[in-house]
């Protein structure tokens, strides 16, 4: 069975339907499947519910699908970098369901692992817990959250073999591996496509069982949201030190 597709459009062919739920990997603009996002824009599919930690920035990442008004609802933890989002939200054109970031990640992990619900301390006593079951375990209160399964997951990986065994690079991993497990179909865009045997099996993060379609994106553009650097003479600066530019 061939999982490799020539381009993002053919990799998504037959998968897109109005009103569907899509998970999109990435944290900010890091590790986002932007080539697949552009192909979703070009398909014209609409009324999407999108599960993603953020919603891109203006004109980048998922911001592309806000500009074309293809998103009906976001399930996210933080959307503060996007003015278009705010305008559409305040105008009542866009729904948002905020999830604490760890709850969002765990809902996705649970969905992929066949767990319909779980209890967490996160959000107990806040408006996040309103309307949800709260139960006490060993003297602490926990709120019940539900697993999430999407119709489609789009993820970005650094390297894949033709079986869909995926490796990620640095912090571009983020939400991509759990999302790859939590959808009926997962499409991965990959910077490097190699042959089976070319990846050390010990270094595979997402086994190919989770990946149905692969599209190579050797020239994918990567964005930097906050470019922070330090001067050469501060070579011994402690962790986190530096100047913002």
């Amino acid at each position: 069975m061939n999982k490799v597709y020539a381009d993002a459009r053919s990799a998504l062919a037959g998968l897109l339907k109005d009103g569907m739920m899509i998970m999109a990997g990435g944290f900010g603009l890091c590790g986002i499947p932007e080539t697949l996002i552009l192909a979703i824009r070009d398909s014209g599919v609409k009324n999407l519910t999108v599960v993603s930690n953020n919603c891109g920035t203006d004109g980048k990442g998922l911001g592309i699908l806000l500009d074309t008004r293809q998103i009906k609802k976001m399930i996210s933890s933080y959307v503060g970098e996007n003015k278009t989002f705010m305008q559409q939200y305040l105008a009542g054109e866009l729904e948002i369901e905020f999830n604490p970031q760890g709850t969002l990640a765990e809902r996705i992990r649970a969905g992929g692992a066949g767990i319909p619900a779980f209890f967490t301390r996160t959000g107990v006593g806040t408006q996040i817990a309103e309307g949800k079951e709260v139960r006490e375990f060993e003297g602490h209160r926990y709120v019940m959250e539900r697993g999430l399964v999407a119709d489609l997951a789009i993820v970005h990986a650094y390297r894949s073999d033709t079986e869909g065994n995926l490796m990620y690079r640095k912090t571009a991993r983020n939400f991509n591996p759990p999302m790859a497990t939590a959808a009926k179909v997962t499409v991965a865009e990959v910077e490097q496509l190699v042959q089976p045997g070319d990846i050390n099996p010990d270094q595979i993060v997402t086994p190919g069982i989770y990946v149905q379609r692969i599209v190579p994106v050797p020239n994918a553009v990567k964005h930097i949201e906050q470019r922070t650097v330090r001067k050469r003479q501060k070579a011994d600066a402690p962790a986190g030190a530096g100047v913002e530019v």
Partner: protein
Amino acid sequence: MPWTREQMAERAAKELQDGYYVNLGIGIPTLVSNYIPPGMSVQLQSENGMLGTGPFPFEGEEDPDLINAGKQTVTELPTTSYFNSADSFAMIRGGHIDIAILGAMQIAENGDLANWMIPGKMVKGMGGAMDLVGGVKKVVVVMEHSAKNESKLKHRCSLPLTGAGVVDMVVTDLGVFTLDKNGGGLTLIELAPDVTLDDIRSKTEASFKVANTLKQ
């Protein structure tokens, strides 16, 4: 003299201990990394999936695949490890992080913390803050004592909560308070230089006790 942002960060850094795993929030908390004492080994966690977060890169060496939770470019250290977002919050929720230092809009005398939204004005989302305050062993808040001449230390938070009864310590520009989450309330333990107890009383809405050992 009230403390500057840097001095507040320096004071918060005194809560670090050798071997700690630490999560620093955006803003003043980020400056805490500049005051880790020489010889002390702490590992900084970035909740986007990195432990052992290094300093900002040299100009020209920025890597779009290597950022912290504030989406700033950072670098790797010899101790660095990477993991996915679900593992990152398992680490946080599971109580494996020793301390989180973060900012706040309001703190209440019962340890409630609000820092994620202002209804009708600021609707950005909570990011990882709710998970951090609910899961990390010790929560230290660093914030200005007042905003627009209004005390940020309240009897009760008027803004939607990030966490209920979660704060252990508050460092403001005027002093340091500890919080007893088992109903013991807020206690003033330190004053910034030349700040008096009367100054603090006049600028604090929350009820608080004064420690016998108060350093003035």
